[in-house]
């Protein structure tokens, strides 16, 4: 049995920016794909071609361009549905980003317009998130708690950077209406054990949402196999464009939820004093949707599928192994997140003793053209948990090489010299 593999040199040629020279003659070493990924020519050209030759509004048009654009837009939904194993294409809602997808679900609760008891919420009800969440999977639930009087609770994180499941049974209980956690942490790299949490959620009748912003781009993900109720992810992290995100939800739940944004395209009929709504997915897509962005996302999904998500995952695993080994030898470097390869993805966050991450990141960029992310990575509570204001984070994708990781290590040595 041979492992799936990919030809990284060939892939790099697909990404124009990777051969770019930065001001001052620096090469670009892009290790910030966890923040947002670069785009291959295939995606860029699909968007260009659509804008130049096939663009029009979708759905409501009765002409040739309208038909072409609608076919492209709805075709993108088919492709995304297939990519994540959605049982039905109608369960794929296009949003503007993962954050909107998370907010959309949060706004479905405690909404006076919604009648389904699963989405009713008030004082005494509980919402569960975790301490390792991205702000986009914390703040919408804080808002929900504030609007409804429900209580927000959370899983802790172990010293090793794993979800602390020790209190699972008390934390997720009969009062819990929804649990929403990251599938993969954008800081620690940890892949969370969905099955255990799901089983407990089912036991108590709570819904489960996964923030898969960091997993869908990097692993084969099958939403049906995962078994959750809602899954959110985002186009720009999976070699697609900005301006588009995805909410997958069980059709039956999406149909039971009240609408979120009101306007054109999400209605069936409108009178001045009332409206009826389109079936899913359109019920949640008010106004002109991200048309050319869907075209780009479809091209992204085609691109990743052609390479194979197994191969992408295997490649990143190799890079992560290399990075964990090489970084481990830097004196004063403290890894924040699991040190072994089990259940973790290609995101490596760390601190360097005595040197502020802002300085690390900026010197790496300034001197070597190495792009990493520094700060709290929109996961401030996680950093508070570890007692640090910020970390430096390198995150890998299909186009990265072990040479680039070696350059990072060399760069970190230089940083230590500058600030030593």
């Amino acid at each position, binding site marked *: 049995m041979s492992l799936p593999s990919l030809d990284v040199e060939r892939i790099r040629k697909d990404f124009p920016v990777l051969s770019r020279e930065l001001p001052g003659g620096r090469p670009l070493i892009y290790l910030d794909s966890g923040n947002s990924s670069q785009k291959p020519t295939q995606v860029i050209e699909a968007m260009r071609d659509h804008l130049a030759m096939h663009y029009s509004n979708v759905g*409501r048009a009765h002409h040739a361009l309208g038909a072409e654009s*609608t*076919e492209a837009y709805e075709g993108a939904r088919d492709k995304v549905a297939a990519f994540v194993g959605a049982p039905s294409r109608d369960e794929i809602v296009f949003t503007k980003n993962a954050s909107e997808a998370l907010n959309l679900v949060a706004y479905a609760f405690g909404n006076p317009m919604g009648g389904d008891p699963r989405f009713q919420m008030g004082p005494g009800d509980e919402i569960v998130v975790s301490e390792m969440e991205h702000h986009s999977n914390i703040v919408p639930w804080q808002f929900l708690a504030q609007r409804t009087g429900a209580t927000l609770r959370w899983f802790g994180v172990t010293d090793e950077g794993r979800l602390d499941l020790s209190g699972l049974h008390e934390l997720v209980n009969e009062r819990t209406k929804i649990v929403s956690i990251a599938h993969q942490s954008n800081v620690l790299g940890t892949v969370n054990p969905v099955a255990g949490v799901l089983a407990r959620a089912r036991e108590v009748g709570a819904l489960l949402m996964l923030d898969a912003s960091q997993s869908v781009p990097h692993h084969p993900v099958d939403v049906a196999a995962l078994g959750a109720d809602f899954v959110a992810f985002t186009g720009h992290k999976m070699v697609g464009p900005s301006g588009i995100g995805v909410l997958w939800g069980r059709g039956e739940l999406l149909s039971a939820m009240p609408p979120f944004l009101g306007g054109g395209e999400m209605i*069936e*009929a409108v009178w001045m004093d009332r409206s009826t709504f389109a079936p899913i997915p359109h019920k949640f897509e008010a106004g002109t949707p991200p048309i050319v962005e869907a075209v780009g996302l479809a091209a992204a999904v085609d691109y990743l599928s052609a390479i194979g998500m197994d191969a992408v995952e295997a490649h990143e695993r190799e890079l992560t192994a290399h990075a964990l080994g090489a970084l481990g030898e830097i004196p004063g470097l403290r890894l924040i997140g699991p040190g072994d390869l089990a259940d973790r993805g290609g995101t490596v966050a760390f601190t360097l003793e005595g040197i502020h991450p802002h300085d690390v990141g900026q010197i790496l960029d300034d001197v070597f053209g190495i792009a990493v992310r520094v700060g709290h990575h929109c996961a401030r509570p996680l950093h508070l948990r570890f007692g640090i204001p910020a970390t430096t984070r390198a995150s890998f994708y299909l186009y990265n090489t072990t040479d680039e990781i070696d350059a990072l290590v060399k760069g970190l040595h230089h940083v230590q010299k500058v600030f030593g």
Partner: protein
Amino acid sequence: MIAESMYQELILEHYKHPQGRGLREPYDAEVHHVNPTCGDEITLRVKLGDGGKVEDVSYDGQGCSISQAAASVLYDLATGSTARESLSVVDEFTRLMQGRGQVEPDEDVLGDAVAFAGVAKFPARVKCALLAWMAYKDAVVRSQ
């Protein structure tokens, strides 16, 4: 008119000379369907005979040529066939209409109704084509 045209001669022919139009007695069930997005409406009656034979489909309504022609084509296909047979034609027609232009129509099953294949590319028109057919399905179910 070009080849891929949505307006096949046949559709125009049915629109201008609708078959079986008008509400007739006797009937087992009558339904009234409306497409709220464009205001098209239809009233449709079904009369079933022995062995589920469709003895009459009578209808009246208003709307665009697609919705009107679709009712006329439906009349031709359904009368004389059985409820069971005609419902499988409805299913195939629905599949074609909801296929966004990517479904290959089964001409053997659909007969004249393949003329509507071009409609499937225009989501806004699909409901027009389906209006009478959905009403028919509904009426047959209520007749049985």
